[in-house]
């Protein structure tokens, strides 16, 4: 029965519930999950506190950047509010030689990769056409074309195979992107070549104003087996579970097991971008339901139950977040305007005589403006 597999997973694409990997419940209770517990056996209290601090800091980066946009300092900002656990849990699972190909909302992943905070804002301030050197942190600059980065990831992973390396390419995209041809093609190639790539889908329930149920009538994770790619659905607001499933997928990829598709079921609690008003298309009750599943709150509760959420800890986390926010703001306001000739930078990796010629012409053209005020009278 061809349909049996699809019917075996209950619930629609947006629902949580059975079939979902969860290690910490929304109430902060650690529940056993035999297949995954061993994968996070090393995560002790201090490590949990570290994950918590990461999530607080990236949430603060997010709110500070949103404020900067409202203050006219950024043209646009895509908030990740609500998706901290999915991004921190997966991002912290990676090795430094793994390579990330993300969409534009994965600022928490970039934080895990050690990006310079100012570089996160560069593009959104209109200051540069891309933010950072991808090879410095092994993360490509954000892809705005929906889903295109999945092809880059598969291609990179095929390169890893050729090199005989054991690094892994990880690509991040959303529920809406799974409707794109690029994502489907990337999965076909990944499966054909058994490439070491992880398709990390953050199902945040909304493709701008389109609810996930319009694009998928079954859980998105169910699509991957059709390509021959094993998949897993994880509670995307559970940072520990996200860490566990990502580690599992990484181990599979490193040992020649090929690609994995992870669907992290989470929720975009903010607008699509600062130019969007979700109240126009989204039920307030839905937001309330998801606020109860907030990734930070549940880890707070869990740490509290372990006696690890005391005042000294929260004060330290707050100080860290404040410092990061201040650094972000100072970096944004202090960003040097690019020079016109910067447009010639980073076009070719090696010197190019034609480009040099064009740059020379352009600079001479620009210099013709310089003394126009003084020469006006004479001409």
């Amino acid at each position, binding site marked *: 029965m061809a349909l049996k597999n699809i019917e075996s997973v209950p619930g629609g694409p947006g629902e949580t519930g059975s079939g979902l990997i969860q290690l910490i419940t929304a109430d902060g209770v650690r529940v056993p999950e035999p297949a995954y517990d061993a994968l996070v056996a090393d995560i002790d209290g201090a490590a949990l506190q570290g994950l918590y601090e990461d999530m607080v800091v990236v949430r603060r980066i997010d*709110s*500070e950047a949103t*404020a900067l*946009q*409202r*203050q*006219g*300092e950024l*043209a*646009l900002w895509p908030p990740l509010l609500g998706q901290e656990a999915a991004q921190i849990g997966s991002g912290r699972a990676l090795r430094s030689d793994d390579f990330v190909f993300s969409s534009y909302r994965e600022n928490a992943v970039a934080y895990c990769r050690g990006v310079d905070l100012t570089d996160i804002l560069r593009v959104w301030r209109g200051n540069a056409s891309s933010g950072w050197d991808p090879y410095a942190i092994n993360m490509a600059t954000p892809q705005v074309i929906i889903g295109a980065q999945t092809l880059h990831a598969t291609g990179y992973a095929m390169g890893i195979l050729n090199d005989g390396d054991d690094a892994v390419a990880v690509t991040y995209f959303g529920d809406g992107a799974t409707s794109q041809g690029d994502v489907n093609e990337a999965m076909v190639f990944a499966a054909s070549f058994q490439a070491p790539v992880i398709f990390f889908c953050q199902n945040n329930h909304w493709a701008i104003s389109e609810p996930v149920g319009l694009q998928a009538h079954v859980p998105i994770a169910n699509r991957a087996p059709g390509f021959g790619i094993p998949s897993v659905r994880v509670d995307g607001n559970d940072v520990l579970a996200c860490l566990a499933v990502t580690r599992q997928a990484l181990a599979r990829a490193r040992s020649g097991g090929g690609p994995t598709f992870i669907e992290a079921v989470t929720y975009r609690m903010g*607008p699509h971008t*600062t*130019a*969007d*008003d979700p*109240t*126009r298309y989204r039920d307030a009750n839905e937001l309330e339901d998801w606020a109860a599943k907030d990734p930070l709150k549940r880890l707070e509760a869990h740490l509290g139950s372990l006696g690890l959420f005391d005042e000294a800890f929260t004060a330290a986390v707050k100080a860290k977040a404040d410092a990061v926010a201040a650094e972000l*703001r*100072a970096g944004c*306001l*202090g960003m040097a305007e690019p020079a016109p000739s910067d447009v010639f930078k980073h076009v070719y990796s090696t010197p190019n005589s034609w480009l040099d010629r064009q740059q020379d012409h352009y600079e001479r053209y620009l210099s*013709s*403006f310089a*003394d*126009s005020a003084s*020469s*006006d009278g004479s*001409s």
Partner: protein
Amino acid sequence: MAGVIKEFRLPDLGEGLTESEIVSWHVAVGDTVELNQIIADVETAKAVVELPSPYAGVIAELHEQPGTVVEVGAPLVSFEVAGPAGAPPSIGSAASGGDTGAPAKREPNLVGYGAAVEKGGRPERRARRFASQLSGGLNPAGGSALPGLAERVGSAPMIAAVPAVPARPAVEAVPVAPVLESAGSLPASPVRTISGERPRSTPPVRKLARDLGIRLEGVPGTGPGGLITRDDVLAAAQGASASDGAGNGGSVAPASVIPSPVNPSPAGAQDTARETRTPIKGMRKHTAAAMVASAFTAPHVTEFLTVDVTPTMELIGRVKESKAFAGVRITPLTIVAKALCIALRRNPTLNSRWDEAAGDIVQFNYVNLGIAAATPRGLLVPNIKDAQELSLMDLAGALTGLTERARAGKTGPADLSGGTISITNIGVFGIDAGTPILNPGEAAILAMGAVRRMPWEYEGQIALRSVMTLSLSFDHRLVDGEQGSRFLADIGAILADPGMVLTMV
């Protein structure tokens, strides 16, 4: 304290926005605010957003009041901050793109279509020396015959643009010079109009003009760049009806100089026998205005449902025979009206009004049922007050009285005002279906088609049945497809099986 005043100008809060409305201030002059403290709610074309304070300091001045629409780049609020040392780097320059004078006027542009080229504030480029040499070499007589080249590379692109096209032939071909001279001496805009180019307007305005019988060629445009606006067309319509009987003289005179494609006879000597012109006034004008207002403000959706109404026709037959209804006029309209009132109770959103001025949706808990009536004077929609309270017999009586008054031209103003929903019976003209336009201020209108004997599926066989099509238009601002569809399906269910009423009341 020796504070520094920092001015915060309204940034572009979305992508390509030009203005925003201040919804409310959360702070007052003299308040101390922290960095990122929410100071105002601002509504853009895209969203209502909270504005976080860019400074820590004291509010020195609020430049605009709530309810004001502020242009991007205009001063919004001034802060007194502790001093240059404690302040973040200048925010004004980044937000407004320069401190000198008023910012250039912004044009809205859609994301993905690129920004408009900024014309102001650019450094001017020094004229190239070889340009003036070239100009002099080609035209020893000076710059007059060739004004374009030197100035195009100089500082006056607007002047250069107009004569640029005739300039080149003028140098090469002397014989055509007189023609070019006369063309060149005309101002740009009349040249365009006479050359037969369509006057600038927008599709809805062209539609309005066509509906009102106004020729756009004769309408002076008052919009930007001579654009003909809705008001211009309405003013022209007013003028046309005021001039009454004066044909196309009077205020629409410019139209008469345009040769009409329909009537090629010279201007002013039109053949009146082939066309009849009636001034737009009275009922026709009122109806036109109401329909235009309705069609252009309420987004209409029309749904159709074809129903086997044989059981309803049988019911009408039985009711007519009963003694209680002796002398009462029972028609399909009576039953449809009753079914509508029952279905409305289950689908109340169809009985509502969009009150734009008050910013409210008015839900009526009563039904003033309008019935579209063709009268000698034109279309009237008198309504039956509190139709939801009426028994079938009372409803039948009210319908009869209403239509009789309408046909006799005795419909009073009270009958015409306060309608909440309407029925139009196009079936009496032998028509099956249509897309009725809402009576202004109402959320729905139901058109009932003719009852036809048609071959229809009945109990697994094909049988001759009485079939009627219902067409329901509704205002999509108020009613979604779901409610509209349920409402229509309820009416259809009653007509297909009047006994279904028992399941609904």
